C-alpha cells in the first residue's frame, strides 16, 4: 500500500466517474458519476495526507471539504432535477435542449 498504488486506484475511480458523467443520459445517473469521481478525489487526498504530508491535519480537512462538496452537489442536484422535471417534464439530458424557454 504505497502512495502510487493509492493514487492509481483514485485515478481509476475518477476515470470511471468521468465516463459515467459523459455517457449517461439521465440526470440522476450523471450525478452518480460525479459522486464517483469525488470519491476518487477523496481517496487521493487521504493517500496524499498519509504518505506525502506526514499526517498534516489540513490533509484531513481537505477530505472533509470534498465531503462538503459532495453533499452540496447532491442536495442542489436533486432539487434541480425535481425543478426541471416540474417545469419541462424532462428527466434526461436529451429532454432539455436549451437553458431558456
Amino acid at each position, binding site marked *: 500500500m504505497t502512495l502510487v498504488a493509492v493514487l*492509481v486506484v483514485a485515478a481509476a475511480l*475518477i476515470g470511471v466517474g*468521468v465516463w459515467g458523467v459523459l*455517457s449517461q443520459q439521465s440526470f440522476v445517473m450523471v450525478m452518480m458519476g460525479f459522486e464517483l469521481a469525488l470519491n476518487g478525489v477523496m481517496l487521493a487526498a487521504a493517500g496524499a495526507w498519509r*504518505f506525502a504530508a506526514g499526517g498534516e491535519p489540513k490533509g484531513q480537512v481537505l477530505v472533509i471539504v470534498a465531503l462538503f462538496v459532495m453533499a452540496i452537489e447532491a442536495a442542489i442536484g436533486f432539487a434541480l432535477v425535481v425543478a426541471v422535471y*416540474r417545469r419541462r417534464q424532462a428527466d434526461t439530458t436529451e429532454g432539455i435542449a436549451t437553458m431558456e424557454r
Partner: protein
Amino acid sequence: MTGWPVDVAFWVLAVGAVWFGWRVFRTDSMVRATFALLVSFLDVGAIMVLLLAEYLGVALFFMMAVEMTVMAIFMVAYMMNPAGLNPMQMVHQPRVAVVAGVLAAAGLAAVAWFADLPSVALVAPQDTIRELGLEVMGESMILMQTAGITLLATMIGAVALTAAHGRFGEATSGSRPPRLDPDAEPVEQEMARPDPHAHHGGHG
C-alpha cells in the same frame, strides 16, 4: 499499518471499489446501481481506515449510506426501469465517454507514476483524530464556518427550488405545462399575448 494482510485487504477493497463503480453504469436495475455505488463508497471508506484516517473512513460510511438511500428514492422516482425488469441502454456519445474516461484515468495515473512525489511518514499515527479535532476547531474554523453557511444556503436553495407553495399561493397556479412538440410556440409566448376578448381595466 503495514504488513501483507493490510496490502491484501487494500487491493481487495480497491478492486472492489473500482469494479462496483463500473457496475453502477452497467446494471439495468437502478436500485442495484445505487447500492453498488454505496458498496464502492464503503470500500473507499474502509481503505481510508486502513490509511489510518479512521474518523474520515467511518464518517464516509455514515454519510454515504444516507446519501445513497436518498438517491435510491430519487432513482425510483425519476428513472425509468428502476427494478431492471427490462433491458435498456441509456447512453449517449458512448465512444467519446469511454475515451475521455480512459484518458482521465491514464493521465492521472501517469502523473502519479512518473512524478517525484514526496514521501513523509506519518508523524503521530495514534493522534490522527485528536489532530483533526484541534485543526477543525483551530485554524480551519473559518473554513468550517464558511461551509456551514454554504450548507445553510444549499438547504434554503433546495427548498426554494422545489417548494410547492410560494409566498402568494400555490407555486404552479396560473402556469401551464410546456408543449410536448419542441417546434411549437412556447406556452409563455402564447400566455404573454394580450387576449383580444378581455376587457381592459378602467382609466385613472
